[in-house]
């Protein structure tokens, strides 16, 4: 920046600086909060993960993670469940968002409230509600047998099925919202132009609508996937102890074994993996931008 030396140049520059500082100071309280309740504990946990039981510096928790197959299983389960949940959310959420985006704005807003409704009740309540619905003597099995749809109670809960049902239910709005927003932003004239140039509705969808809604879909899928990685309550309740994701493993390490170091090291690894995924995904999205999608 070249410093101009005209009349009032110094004062004008100072005014600009003060304005910028004043604006920045608005972030102060939030910054302070993040620093105290987030950075400090996370840093402390990070430190703990490198201490052995005797209090000496050692990588033993990380080495144990490599040597004990149960840890590998927990990570594998976490990624598989997160991936499956995300995939199901896309399959259910994308068509739903599409229908919403084609509705008149008023009707879409009402439907959107219905999509958001689950957010208004506690996650724990919703998870236990699923337990009531899905268990052997639950509403779904009782009615299914009464109506003759199936003979013996289906194993809908205390296993992977229940975990996935619960997680998809909780995650769906996180996918629908960004996808819906990106679809709303697509100028209807693009589809008219596609039709005018000879594209049937199906081809217009694949060639124009889908590519233009892709950034929103990617963002939604990413949010869902990352939230899934740290999920605890739903697998704990609906998995019936059979599903061990990393978060459950961390809880066990602390509650049962009081091993803060082991729990911390799990947290650190999960954190690093998440950051790596975010980084790769952000490169993908930027690539999308480069190809001309996104904000147009």
């Amino acid at each position, binding site marked *: 920046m070249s410093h101009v030396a005209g009349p009032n140049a110094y004062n004008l520059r100072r005014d600009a600086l003060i304005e910028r500082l004043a604006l920045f100071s608005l972030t102060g309280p939030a910054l302070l909060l993040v620093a105290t309740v987030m950075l400090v504990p996370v840093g402390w946990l990070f430190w703990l993960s490198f201490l052995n039981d005797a209090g000496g510096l050692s990588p033993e928790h990380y080495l144990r993670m490599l040597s004990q197959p149960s840890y590998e299983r927990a990570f594998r389960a976490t990624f598989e469940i997160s991936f499956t949940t995300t995939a199901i959310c896309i399959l259910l959420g994308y068509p739903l968002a599409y229908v919403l985006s084609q509705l008149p704005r008023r009707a879409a807003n009402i439907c959107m409230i219905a999509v958001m409704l689950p957010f208004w009740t506690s996650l724990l309540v919703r998870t236990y509600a699923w337990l009531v619905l899905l268990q052997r003597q639950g509403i779904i099995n009782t009615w299914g047998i009464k109506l003759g749809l199936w003979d013996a109670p289906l194993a809908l809960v205390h296993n992977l099925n229940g975990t996935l049902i619960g997680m998809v239910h909780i995650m769906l709005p996180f996918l629908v919202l960004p996808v819906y927003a990106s679809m709303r932003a697509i100028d209807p004239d*693009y589809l008219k*132009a*596609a039709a005018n*140039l*000879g594209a*049937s509705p199906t081809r217009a969808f694949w060639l124009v609508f889908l590519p*233009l809604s892709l950034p929103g879909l990617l963002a939604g899928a990413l949010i869902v996937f990352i939230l899934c990685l740290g999920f605890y309550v739903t697998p704990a309740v609906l998995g019936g102890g059979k599903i061990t994701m990393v978060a459950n493993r961390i809880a066990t390490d602390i509650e049962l074994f009081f091993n803060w170091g082991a729990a911390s090291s799990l947290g650190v690894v999960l954190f690093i993996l998440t950051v790596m995924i975010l980084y790769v995904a952000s490169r993908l999205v930027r690539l999308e931008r480069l190809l*001309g999608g996104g904000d147009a």
Partner: protein
Amino acid sequence: MTRDAALPIAVRQLTKSYGTVQVLDAVDLDVHRGEFLTLLGPSGSGKTTLLMMLAGFVRPDCGSITFGEREVIRLEPHKRDVGMVFQNYALFPHMDVAANIAFPLKLRGVDRVETAKRVEQALELVKLGGYGARRIDQLSGGQRQRIALARAIVFEPRILLMDEPLSALDKQLREHMQIELRQLHERLGMTTVYVTHDQREALTMSDRIAVIDQGRIRQIDTPKTIYERPNNRFVAEFIGESTFVKVDVTSSGCTFNGIPLSLAAQPPQTGPHHLMIRPERLAILQRDPADDVNVLPAIVTAAIYQGDSVLVHASLSDGTMVSVRASASSQAPLVGDHLNLGLNAADTYLLPPEEGVQ
């Protein structure tokens, strides 16, 4: 593309209403083979709705549209084979320029080599040769307009529709593009329907203009006839500046506030009429005029300097306000001056009397 390949359009009884609002009221319209026809009207007149019906995007309540011999009223948009330039261009942002132009060819199964050739030809045609690899957001408004045009004509449609394609451009570029579009039409010869609310644009570009108001075509004719001999007061007022002076027509002649006027033609009906006066047809008389010039005394109420001319507002003897353009170089009249305004008999035009209009 030859003119014979272009298709004529026939619209019959085309009607559309949204609730109680009649958008189109049994419109009949013929667009000749290879003609450049402009739909001109104020916003909300139904001109865009009519164009969207030709493209197939709006479903009419009833009526008929034929392209050549073919009835298309129920045909889906993607089967109509008409080119269209949208108001906001609607270029696909996720494709580069070449992919945008190749889009209709790809859908028609044109092979890769042929596609590349025709894309480059289309780019040359709109004077943007070599722009194929550009991204859409790297283009200026005028360039986007040209690419949209290239995309609309690359598959050689026999009908081209344009929805206010120049409205987003600045004045200078707009006037330049008007001429270019017109030249392109002469070269390609496809039947063109052009929608605008800009009367100058319509006068500049069209073979014929259809003036639309409240869902009805008020007059359809050549630009010259529309301008000089409007059928009704709406057309006369919408196109160009005009003032109307009440005159009395008797079997022996025509008078304005007691002053006898010589007319270009004696109207068929007697009684009160409106004489249409365009500012550029009035002259400020400096000396005694020739015999066929009507003299209207007036008092100057305002003189506005406009660069190329001075716009003079003056009040006639019956109080009617008229405007007249004076050359900016001559001595400008001052407020309160008494003037004699001259109107050539050949330039007089009486509006046909309309029912319910005084």
